[in-house]
């Protein structure tokens, strides 16, 4: 067995620092909500659909409340009140707001008890539905054969959900265990979730509830034929994190890209907005039994993978700590890591092995999401195919949880149908060839690999302790993460951060917290 001899004291220090960093945000989580959070509540209450111009009804309602400075109480109260007073369903209330100029704040507020009585059955219904979806997944996972380690994970990204379906089904039949539908370029920055089945996206397909449903159905069919559960993934990321998490929970997605800091650093979304949104989004994921996946790979696509290896470790620990605050269990934390070392580097394989082992050692129960070479993927498809093979080798050797397969055409286009086939063939061959190799091996005494892993850990620890001292927001403002400066009050979506009233109420968050024992 390849086993690192890691400085345990250093591990404790690093975890402690990460805990300090994330626990400094109770003021934020307790005092604020966001428009996305409120829209999520409305969606969970059953509001769906969109105006002709594409604006979703949850946005219409929340915008109306924002305009009327009524949102600090939470959207649930106002809608429930209207339901109660006008004898409508939540959806009908939203439609009246949208089409008939109903002003929710004009309706006098019923008593707290009455509102609760209106809300409770709705909340129960939705939570039951989500729980049923979770249980369905769990049943199928027992019935079908075990998910392998690493699981084979591929992306589809045609822009057209119907082409995606064909390609996802083909991949599943070829051996993929998980399918991620990549989102259209810049969906992250939309402050709403598009509606319905979509066929035009760039570099990916819009994440919509209807698209989720279409793909879920298509994959369930293949799964049944093969007796092999096919995981479906999308992105609860960007300006609509909790909304998409909720949609995923309703449609039985199984994994969600969901990083605590990605939006801040890589999408220039306001830090407070992001942290608030991830807090609720992750709670929904936890409740729905969805495996989250974090985006540490992004650090390495912009910075050097050796020099900045420690930023991955640091981010993993922060992500872990934020996830704990939202009730996510270690076995549902797909922390990220990526194979982005320059292939021109001597002993690139040993470096990578050190980093991959470090991740496994720090998070033994986490289904680590291991990302393929992308930065050094070039137009030479043969060379890229080799990089992918070495990536697959390390994935199997270190038993990562999820292997996001590299595509030989990474530098050229979003994957063609055949690229995916060849990627799966690559992984299947390598996985089989080195299946039990790990059991045959051990690390030599004082190996470079062990030294390197400890070195990265020490750098990460130092970095985390520094951030803990300064505070996360001020560290970000100084550009200490990913060499990008982000200020507490800068970035997109700040206007969607709302200070809560004392009588703010989010019925779903309350129920979930209880269930998750938070």
């Amino acid at each position, binding site marked *: 067995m390849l086993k690192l001899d890691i400085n345990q004291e250093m591990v404790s220090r690093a975890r402690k620092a990460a805990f300090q960093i994330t626990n400094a945000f109770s003021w934020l989580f307790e005092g604020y909500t966001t428009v996305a959070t409120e829209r999520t509540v409305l969606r969970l209450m059953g509001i769906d659909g969109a105006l002709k111009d594409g604006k979703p009804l949850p946005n219409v309602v929340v915008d109306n409340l924002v305009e009327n400075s009524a949102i600090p109480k939470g959207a649930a109260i106002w809608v429930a009140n209207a339901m109660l007073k006008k004898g409508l369903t939540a959806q009908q209330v939203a439609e009246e707001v949208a089409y008939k100029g109903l002003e929710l704040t004009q309706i006098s507020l019923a008593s707290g008890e009455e509102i609760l009585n209106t809300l409770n059955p709705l909340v129960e219904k939705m939570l039951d539905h989500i729980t049923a979806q979770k249980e369905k997944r769990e049943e199928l996972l027992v019935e079908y054969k075990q998910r392998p380690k690493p699981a084979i994970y591929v992306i589809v990204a045609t822009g057209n959900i119907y082409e995606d379906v064909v390609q996802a089904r083909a991949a599943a039949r070829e051996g993929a265990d998980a399918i991620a539908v990549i989102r259209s370029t810049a969906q992250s920055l939309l402050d709403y979730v598009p509606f319905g089945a979509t066929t035009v996206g760039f570099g990916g397909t819009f994440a919509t509830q209807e698209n989720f449903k279409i793909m879920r159905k298509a994959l369930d069919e293949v799964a049944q034929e093969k007796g092999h559960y096919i995981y479906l993934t999308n992105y609860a990321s960007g300006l609509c994190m909790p909304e998409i998490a909720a949609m995923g929970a309703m449609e039985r997605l199984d994994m969600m890209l969901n990083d605590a800091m990605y939006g801040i650093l890589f999408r220039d979304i306001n830090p407070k907005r992001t942290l608030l949104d991830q807090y609720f989004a992750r709670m929904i994921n936890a409740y729905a039994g969805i495996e989250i996946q974090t985006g540490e790979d992004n650090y390495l696509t912009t910075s050097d993978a050796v020099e900045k290896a420690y930023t991955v470790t640091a981010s993993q620990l922060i992500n872990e700590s934020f996830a704990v605050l939202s009730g996510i269990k270690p076995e549902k934390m797909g922390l990220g890591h990526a194979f982005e070392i320059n292939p021109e580097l001597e002993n690139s394989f040993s470096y990578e092995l050190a980093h991959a082992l470090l991740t496994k050692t720090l998070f033994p129960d986490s289904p680590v999401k291991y990302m393929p070479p992308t930065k050094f993927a070039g137009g030479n498809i043969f060379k890229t195919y080799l990089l992918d093979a070495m990536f697959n080798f390390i994935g199997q050797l270190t038993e990562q949880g999820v292997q996001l397969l590299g595509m030989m055409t990474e530098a*050229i286009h979003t994957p063609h*149908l055949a690229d995916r086939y060849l990627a799966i063939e690559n992984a299947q061959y390598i996985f089989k060839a080195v299946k039990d190799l790990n059991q045959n091996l051990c690390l030599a005494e004082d190996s470079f690999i062990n030294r390197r892993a400890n070195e990265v850990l020490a750098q990460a620890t130092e970095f985390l302790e520094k951030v803990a001292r300064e505070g996360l927001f001020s560290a970000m403002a100084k550009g200490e993460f990913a060499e990008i400066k982000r200020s507490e009050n800068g970035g997109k979506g700040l206007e969607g951060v709302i200070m809560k009233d004392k009588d703010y109420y989010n019925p779903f968050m309350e129920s979930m917290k209880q269930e998750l024992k938070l």
Partner: protein
Amino acid sequence: MSKNIIRPYGDTLNDGKMQLSFTLPVSCDALGKEAAKRLLLQAGFDEAEITSMNDLTEGFTHFIAYAVTSTSVDISKIKVKVVETPVMTMEETDAFVAEHLGRKITVVGACIESDAHTVGIDAIMNMKGYNHRYGLERYHSFNAINMGAQVSCEDLLAKAREVNADAILVSQVVTQKNIHIKNLTRLIELAEAEGLRDKMLFICGGPRISYELAIELGYDAGFGIGTYATDVASYIAITLAKRKVQE
């Protein structure tokens, strides 16, 4: 476009995307790249994109490209020539031969002329067979004579005449400069000259052999990659039985 008229599929129906790679005797620079692109355009491709070029030195450059073809194929117009006899198991073939021919079938096999690749013909003929399918030597209904490697056409025909063979099995693996075509043609011409052509089935096989090519070359059948003894045995048995009926 009709459903029968198909084009390559990259990630969208009929997008026509193809991957290519090739070497040109040009420098590894903008001129070379442009030459590669022009070559593709001239060959009828659109949107030719050179994604990689590597200097092979000595004046050569290797290119990797993606391009869009405007060609399409009407699959409703394609009739492939394939072996049409059903494939029987060894036991079925043995029973079939006993019933319809009432005697053993004699076949003579060889890898002819300069070719020494016997693994293929052995896979068909040897007791042991290939991928857990027994070879003809294990069939009760076959008398299989494997002459091995580098057998001259003359020797093969002489042996076939001597044992009064029902079929000749020829293997050809080396194809450089179309040597397999030359060798296979030579065998058939000699057989014709010697009056043997119609006395027995002529069957060839090898990784670059197809049924179609075999027919073109004047053989009765041809077998390519992934053939098993069952395929050949069934074909021979059924064809001989049919001919017997016709006689």
